[in-house]
């Protein structure tokens, strides 16, 4: 449970202090004073402070800047039965996230300053992980008129996106990228060419051919990826590409980055760990958009996380009610929850097999997302906000959705044994989560 009274001082002892933003990787201590990092690095020896000091032994643990998820769905307002900002923020903290960005496809859509303000107030009340609203690109996410970016950002929004829906109109996307330059915020796009993807329920490939399900070709994503990159080149705006899933998307992003076009991209843990084969047996917990692709795509995405072509990892946490997933595959909703499994899926599938280091993991889950979305945190530098994640890199645990703090249970990882688990999450110097074993 979140600790309601903040300690004046928090001392994290003997952990592996790992902060790629300041090239730090030593066994030592981190001292937080009044919500701000006072020291991160070498062991401090005897620490005496006037006032309330809590000391936590972090031996064998990694102490890193807090994870930042730039893409999740918290379902409030509209579907509080499925998730609320409070339950989502607590689930985030339990997963090691100190901050999450909430996508605007709520009901009503978060497309104005009042709606943005509501999310911020609910998040303050929850007092767990920070929640940053993302405003809609278009009014009602209808893809027609631009929403009031300026007012939403004034109220606390950090980016704009019509996620959940693609921006079908190239002209609207162009205008959004141009207009967003005023505020220097990313325009996050759900890349999906709607006529190609229409009616599709899974990746178009050998498995869809066998199961008799309508497929979504990878080109549905790739066409929009290159469109967005070209529009970013034309406008000078910053396009952020959500949940990349294919090999060619990676190649196109690399093409854009090589030309210094302002494109950043994210990948979800499930697209790094599962393939279209997971759909076998019409498993609706493997139904998502974009769909799970092939082993070759997964391999390319992993390499892209390693070499930085993909800048960051985001969960696309998408809770659904049990009943909604308990139906015919083609009619079941897309999406899976991810906040409480992201770290372990990354450690198990990318760090343990030696594809990336823990430093890269921390960069892609903390430093890079904070930097790209211009958020506080993502660093242990002296004087920055004390948003910190402590995790046990060797903890082996079995995924039991019943124990999740999220209201969602829709995960394809249920019953799997994974490695790596957050043990303590600190937001602004306040301990918002501790793993009780």
């Amino acid at each position, binding site marked *: 449970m979140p600790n309601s009274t903040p300690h004046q001082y928090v001392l994290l002892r003997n952990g592996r202090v790992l902060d790629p933003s300041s090239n730090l990787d030593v066994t030592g201590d981190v001292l937080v004073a009044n919500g701000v990092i006072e020291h991160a690095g070498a062991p401090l020896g005897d620490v005496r402070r006037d006032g309330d000091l809590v000391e936590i032994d972090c031996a064998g643990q990694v102490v890193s800047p807090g994870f930042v998820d730039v893409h999740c769905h918290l379902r409030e307002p509209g579907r509080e039965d499925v998730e609320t900002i409070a339950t989502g923020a607590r689930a985030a903290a339990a997963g090691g996230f100190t901050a999450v960005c909430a996508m605007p496809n709520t009901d009503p859509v978060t497309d104005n300053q009042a709606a943005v303000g509501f999310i911020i107030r609910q998040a303050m009340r929850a007092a767990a992980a920070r929640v940053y609203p993302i405003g809609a690109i278009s009014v009602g996410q209808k893809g027609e008129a631009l929403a009031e970016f300026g007012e939403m950002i004034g109220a606390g929004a950090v980016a704009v996106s019509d996620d959940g829906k693609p921006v079908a109109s190239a002209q609207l996307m162009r205008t959004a990228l141009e207009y967003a330059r005023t505020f220097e915020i990313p325009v996050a796009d759900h890349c999906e060419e709607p006529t190609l993807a229409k009616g599709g329920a899974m990746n178009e490939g050998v498995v869809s*051919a*066998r199961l*008799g*399900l309508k497929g979504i070709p990878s080109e549905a994503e790739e066409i929009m990826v290159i469109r967005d990159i070209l529009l970013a080149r034309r406008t000078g705006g910053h396009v952020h590409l959500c949940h990349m899933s294919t090999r060619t998307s990676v190649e196109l992003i690399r093409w854009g980055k090589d030309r210094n076009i302002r494109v950043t991209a994210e990948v979800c843990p499930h697209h790094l760990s599962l393939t279209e084969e997971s759909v076998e047996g*019409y498993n609706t917990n493997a139904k998502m958009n974009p769909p799970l692709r092939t082993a070759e795509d997964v391999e390319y995405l992993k390499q892209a996380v390693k070499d930085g072509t993909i800048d960051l990892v985001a969960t696309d946490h998408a809770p659904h009610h049990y*009943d909604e997933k*308990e*139906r*015919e595959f*083609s009619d079941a909703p897309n999406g899976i929850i991810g906040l409480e499994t992201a770290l372990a899926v990354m450690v198990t599938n990318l760090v343990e097999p030696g594809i990336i280091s823990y430093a890269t993991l921390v960069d892609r889950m903390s430093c890079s997302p904070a930097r790209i979305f211009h958020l506080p945190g993502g660093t242990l530098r002296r004087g920055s906000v004390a948003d910190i994640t402590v995790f046990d890199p060797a903890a082996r645990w079995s995924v039991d959705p019943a124990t999740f703090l999220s209201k969602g249970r829709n995960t394809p990882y249920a019953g799997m044994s994974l490695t790596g688990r957050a043990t303590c999450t600190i937001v602004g110097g306040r301990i918002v989560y501790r793993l009780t074993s």
Partner: protein
Amino acid sequence: MNSPHLGKDLLGLEELTAAKIQLLLDTAEPFKEISLRAIKKVPTLRGATIVNLFFEPSTRTRISFEFAEKRLSADTVNVASAGSSVSKGETLVDTARNLEAMKIDMVVVRHAASGAARFLAQRIESNVINAGDGTHEHPTQGLLDMLTLRDHFKRLEGLRVCICGDVLHSRVARSNIWGLQKMGAEVAICGPRSLLPNHVESLGVHVFRRIEEAIEWADALNILRLQLERMQGGYIPSLREYNRVFGVTREKLERAPRDILIMHPGPMNRGVEIDSDVADGPHSVILDQVTNGVAVRMAVLYLLAGGNPALAEAAKG
């Protein structure tokens, strides 16, 4: 209940072994004769309750199952989607719960979603027979097609069968492909590429681009129905052009190096995928398929109800 010979359900031919397919075909043989009697009824399934749950209209398949059930003396209830709770937004899982509560012995299900029959089978104890799920499988159609081929050629092994037309939206195609391949036949498909699933070659079939090539190769053509709405969907330019390029006509068949058996799951669009003189011609076994459909379904019902294949002859009474 679990049948000793077939298991609990018949969901598709992909999961059946060649031995089980063989058993189903062999068991269908004695049941053919019942349909020729004056009183076409035996007491084999007396007391069994069967629900025909058709979420999608299909007069032919439903009537064929109903005949099979009645000839085996089962009590049947038909639930069609129109006017039933199904159309009032009742979910498949609710339907399953209700069926379970009514203590039904068997459910024959037709549904527009691929995987729907399996979905139901996993949630109820009754035996489930897939009468067509979306664009996935239609196993009894596959079996009756194989029975018809076997009647004619006296074997399935080594036969060359080409499935022609809209494979993309067909459930018959997959059941045929898996069933025939397991029995040692060679299967090819032929149709406009816009109506073939991408990666269909991964199912082990050869793809002919032109119907003339298929005709040169095949021992039998299984001609699929072209759903007329595919033209509005933009998959093909016109029915006229479809008939010219992919339609099976007598002229095209006359150039074949051998007599080709003509099959069609029906209902046919005469003058589109098949010309009338082919459908009614000497090599057409389209009506035999209908007759065999009842026998195959009787065999499926009999075996799933626990019937002993060795006693199928005696079960006729």
